[in-house]
C-alpha cells in the first residue's frame, strides 16, 4: 500500500543545531538544491517511519520572519503556501529567550507547531533549567527535548510530529502574543474589514494579515490588496490611519512597538518556565577560547595562520591527488591513443573531451579540501569570528567581513573562491564578492607573467609580477566601491551577527557539507565545461584540410632521405649519432613551422587575426590575440598557445627567446600581463559565476565588465607609456 506523505518543516535560528538534527533524520538520503528563483540552499529528504513517508524540509535558519532577507521570505512562504503538516521549531535551549522570538512569529502563522528544545545539556551546564511542561502549557503546544549532536530524542521528536499531524484538534487560537489594547483594537478592525470585504478567498488567516499590515509588511500588503479587489484602497486607508494613530500614541512605529511587546510576552514565559541557578559555577569555554582567538593582539595573527594553513592544505596537499588525476587522465588518453585509429574522432575524444573535462576535474581535490576547511570553520563557529576580525577592513570596500575568505581563495583558484562566496548571507554581498574575486590573480595566470616578465624585465621580473598582483587588488577595491554605490546600491545589510558558542565539529556533518557542495561543482560544471571545451577544441582543430603554403611532409621526407644518405657515408658511430640529432632537430623545426601555420589557419587563428585590430592599440599582435582567446578555456593555455604560434618548441627558454625577437616591447608585455590579469575569467569560473549568482545576466556582466576593464587599463598603460616615450 502506498504510504501517505507527511511534510515536516524544520524551522529555527541559525546555530540552533537545526542542520545537525536534519542530518540525523535524513542521513544520506537528502537532496540539496536551491529554492526556486533564489540561491538559498534548499535541503530535503524523505524517510519512512510508522507507516508514513515523511518529507523533511530544512528551512533556512532565521532569527525572525520579517521579510527583510531572502532566507526569511523563503521560510515564511514555504509555511504559508505549502502548508506543511507540521512545523518543528528547533530551539537552542541555552538561548531560549531570543529563540522564542521566532517561535512567537511561527505561532502567529497558525501552523501545527512543535518545539524541539535542543542542546538542553548545554543549558543545564550553564545552570538554566527549563520546565518543559510549563512551557508546553503556556504556549499550548508539544515540547520535546533533543540533543542533536548525540542523536538523542530524535525518535521521540518524530513520534510527536506524527501524533500532531494525525490529531484533528483545532489549531489552538489562544496562547498567542496579545498586544496592548490599542493595537488589538486596530488588529480587530482591520481583520473585520478583511473578512467582510474580500472578493476572493483570503490567502492566509485574517488576524495574521491584519498584524502584518499594521507592521507595514510590503509583501503581505501586495497580496492582501490583490485578494481585496475593489476594497483594497479602502482597506489600505484604514491600515494607514491606524498606523498613524498608533505612531502618535506611542511616538514610534507600530512594528517597533509590536517587536517590543513580543519580547515582553517572551519575558513573561521565561519568568514562569525557566529557573536560572545563580550559584552555578560558570565555566564558559567559548569565552576562554575567544580570549585568544579574538584577542586584541593575537586574534589577527592567529586568523592569518589559519588562512595560511587552509591555503597550504588546499593547494599543497591538493597537489598530490591532482597529480594522480592528471596521470590517470594521461594513462587513459595514452591507452586510447593506442587503441583508436588516428583521425578526427580520436582527436575529438582526446584533445576536446578528455582534455577539457580533465582540466576541470583536476580541481576536484582542491575543492574537496577547501570545502572541508570551510565546513570546519563554519561548524566550529570560527567563521563568525573571522568575520568579526576582518569586518573593519572589508567594510572599506563596502563588503562584509565574511567576504575575505572567498577573495583570498581567489589567489589560488577562482572556481572554489566563487563557490566559497556561498557563506555570505546577503545576496548583494554575495554578488559583489563574486564580481570582484576574479581580479585576485589566480595561480593559473602566474606562468603567463613568469614568461612575459622573465623575458622583458629580467632582474625586475619579481617586482613587476608583484605589482600586477597589487594592481588586481587595487582594482577589486575600486570596483567594489563603484558597484556598491551604483549597481548594488541600497541600504547596507546590518552587520548584527551572532557569535555562537564554539562547538566540536562532527565528522558526519563535515562530510555531508563537503560532499554536497563538491557534488554540485561536479554536476553543474561538467555540462558547461564539456560544451565549452569541445567548442574551443573545434575552433582550433578545424578546418581539417589546411592548404599549407609549404609542403611540410615533403620537407620532412627530404631531410630523412638526406640523413639516410649521409648516415650511409658516415662510418663512426659517434658521427652517426650527431647526424641523427641534427636530423631530429631539423624535423622538429619543420613540424613547428607546420603547427604554427596550422594554428594560424585554424578558425581560432582566423578569429585571432580578425580580432587583431582590437588588440593592436594594446600592443598585442595576432599571436597574442589568439593566445588570449584560447585562454578562455584555462589561463595556463595562453602560454602553450604562445609557444605554438611562436614556433618555439618545448621549454620556456625557447619561448622567451622567440618572444624577445617577436617585436614585443616591455610596454606591450606589461600591457598583455595586465590584460591577462583582468580579462574575462576562465570557462570553469564563468560557469561557477553562472551557478552561484543563479543568473546568466550576472555571468555575462562579469565577462563584459572584466574584459572592458582589461582593455581600458591595457590601453591606458600602453598608449600612455608610448606618449611618455617608454617602449
Amino acid at each position, binding site marked *: 500500500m502506498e504510504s501517505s506523505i507527511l511534510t515536516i518543516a524544520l524551522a529555527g535560528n541559525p546555530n540552533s543545531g537545526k542542520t545537525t538534527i536534519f542530518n540525523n533524520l535524513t542521513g544520506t538520503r537528502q537532496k540539496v538544491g536551491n529554492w526556486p528563483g533564489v540561491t538559498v540552499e534548499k535541503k530535503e529528504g524523505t524517510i519512512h517511519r510508522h507507516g508514513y513517508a515523511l518529507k523533511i524540509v530544512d528551512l533556512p535558519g532565521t*532569527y*525572525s520572519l*520579517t521579510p*527583510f532577507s531572502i532566507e526569511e521570505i523563503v521560510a515564511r512562504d514555504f509555511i504559508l503556501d505549502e502548508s506543511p503538516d507540521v512545523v518543528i521549531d528547533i530551539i537552542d535551549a*541555552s*538561548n531560549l*529567550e*531570543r529563540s522564542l*522570538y521566532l517561535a512567537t512569529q511561527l505561532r502567529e502563522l497558525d501552523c501545527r507547531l512543535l518545539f524541539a528544545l535542543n542542546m538542553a545539556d548545554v543549558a543545564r551546564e*550553564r545552570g*538554566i533549567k527549563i520546565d518543559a511542561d510549563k512551557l508546553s502549557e503556556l504556549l499550548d503546544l508539544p515540547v520535546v527535548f533533543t540533543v542533536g549532536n548525540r542523536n538523542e530524542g530524535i525518535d521521540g521528536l518524530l513520534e510527536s510530529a506524527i501524533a500532531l499531524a494525525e490529531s484533528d484538534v483545532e489549531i489552538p487560537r489562544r496562547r498567542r502574543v496579545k498586544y496592548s489594547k490599542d493595537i488589538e483594537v486596530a488588529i480587530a478592525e482591520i481583520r473585520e474589514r478583511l473578512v467582510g470585504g474580500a472578493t476572493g478567498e483570503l490567502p492566509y488567516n485574517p488576524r495574521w494579515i491584519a498584524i502584518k499590515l499594521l507592521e507595514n509588511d510590503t509583501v503581505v500588503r501586495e497580496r492582501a490588496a490583490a485578494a481585496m479587489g475593489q476594497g483594497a484602497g479602502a482597506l489600505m486607508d484604514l491600515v494607514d490611519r491606524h498606523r498613524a494613530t498608533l505612531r502618535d500614541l506611542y511616538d514610534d512605529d507600530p*512594528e*517597533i512597538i509590536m*517587536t*517590543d511587546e513580543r*519580547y515582553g510576552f517572551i519575558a513573561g514565559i521565561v519568568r514562569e518556565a525557566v529557573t536560572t541557578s545563580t550559584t552555578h559555577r560558570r565555566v564558559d569555554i*567559548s*569565552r576562554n577560547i*575567544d580570549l585568544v582567538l*579574538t*584577542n*586584541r*593582539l593575537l*586574534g*589577527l595573527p592567529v586568523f592569518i595562520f589559519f588562512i595560511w594553513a587552509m591555503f597550504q592544505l588546499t593547494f599543497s596537499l591538493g597537489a598530490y591527488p591532482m597529480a594522480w588525476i592528471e596521470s590517470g587522465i594521461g594513462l587513459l588518453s595514452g591507452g586510447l591513443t593506442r587503441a583508436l585509429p588516428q583521425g578526427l574522432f580520436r582527436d575529438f575524444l582526446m584533445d576536446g573531451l578528455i582534455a577539457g573535462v580533465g582540466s576541470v576535474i583536476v580541481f576536484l581535490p582542491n575543492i574537496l579540501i577547501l570545502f572541508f576547511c570551510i565546513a570546519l570553520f563554519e561548524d566550529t563557529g570560527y567563521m*563568525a569570528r573571522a568575520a*568579526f*576580525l576582518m*569586518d*573593519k*577592513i572589508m*567594510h572599506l570596500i563596502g563588503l562584509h567581513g565574511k567576504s575575505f575568505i572567498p577573495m583570498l581563495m581567489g589567489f589560488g583558484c577562482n572556481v572554489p573562491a566563487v563557490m566559497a562566496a556561498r557563506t555570505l548571507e546577503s545576496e548583494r554581498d554575495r554578488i559583489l564578492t563574486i564580481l570582484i574575486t576574479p581580479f585576485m590573480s589566480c595561480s593559473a595566470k602566474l606562468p603567463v607573467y613568469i614568461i612575459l616578465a622573465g623575458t622583458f624585465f629580467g632582474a625586475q621580473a619579481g617586482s613587476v609580477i608583484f605589482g600586477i598582483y597589487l594592481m588586481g587588488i587595487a582594482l577589486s577595491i575600486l570596483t567594489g566601491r563603484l558597484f556598491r554605490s551604483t549597481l548594488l546600491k541600497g*541600504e547596507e*545589510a*546590518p*552587520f*548584527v*551577527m*551572532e*557569535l*555562537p*558558542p564554539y562547538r566540536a565539529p562532527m565528522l558526519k556533518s563535515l562530510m555531508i557539507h563537503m560532499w554536497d557542495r563538491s557534488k554540485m561543482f561536479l554536476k553543474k560544471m561538467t555540462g558547461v565545461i564539456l560544451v565549452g571545451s569541445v567548442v574551443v577544441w573545434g575552433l582550433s582543430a578545424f578546418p581539417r584540410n589546411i592548404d599549407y603554403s609549404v609542403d611540410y611532409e615533403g620537407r620532412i621526407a627530404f631531410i630523412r632521405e638526406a640523413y639516410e644518405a649521409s648516415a650511409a657515408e658516415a662510418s663512426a658511430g659517434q658521427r652517426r649519432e650527431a647526424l641523427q640529432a641534427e636530423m631530429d632537430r631539423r624535423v622538429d623545426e619543420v613540424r613547428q613551422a607546420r603547427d604554427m601555420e596550422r594554428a594560424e589557419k585554424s578558425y581560432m587563428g582566423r578569429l585571432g587575426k580578425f580580432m587583431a585590430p582590437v588588440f593592436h592599440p594594446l600592443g598585442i599582435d595576432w599571436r597574442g590575440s589568439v593566445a588570449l582567446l584560447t585562454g578562455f578555456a584555462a589561463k595556463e593555455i595562453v602560454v602553450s598557445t604562445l609557444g605554438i604560434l611562436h614556433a618555439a618548441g618545448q621549454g620556456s627558454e625557447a619561448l622567451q627567446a622567440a618572444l624577445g625577437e617577436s617585436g614585443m616591447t616591455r610596454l606591450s608585455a606589461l600591457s598583455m600581463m595586465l590584460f591577462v590579469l583582468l580579462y574575462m575569467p576562465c570557462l570553469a569560473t564563468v560557469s561557477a559565476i553562472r551557478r552561484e549568482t543563479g543568473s546568466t545576466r550576472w555571468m555575462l556582466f562579469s565577462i563584459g565588465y572584466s574584459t572592458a576593464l582589461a582593455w581600458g587599463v591595457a590601453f591606458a598603460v600602453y598608449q600612455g607609456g608610448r606618449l611618455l616615450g617608454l617602449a
Partner: protein
Amino acid sequence: MTRAAETEAAAAGAPAVPKRLSELRESQRGRVTRVGGEGVLRRRILEMGIVKGAEIYVEKYAPLKDPLELIVKGYHVSLRVSEASQIMVEPIP
C-alpha cells in the same frame, strides 16, 4: 557633563545619564533606553533581543576597534560601532 559630575550623579543615586552604546568601554554594562536608527537595521537590532530595558555587557572590541562584541540575553552578538552608536544605554555601575 564631565566625568567627575557623572560619577557624582551616580554616587548620589541619581539615574545614570544615557550614553551611546559605542561609548561604553570593554567590560562595562548598560541598560538599553532607546534604539534609534532606520528601517531594517533598527528592526534587526530589536529582533536580536536588544530591546528597551535589556541589559548589555560589552565583552570586547575587535582588534581593529570595530565591530564590538556584546552579551545580551545570555548570548554573544557583534555590532558595528556605527550601529552601536544608535543605541542609547544607561550605564550600570
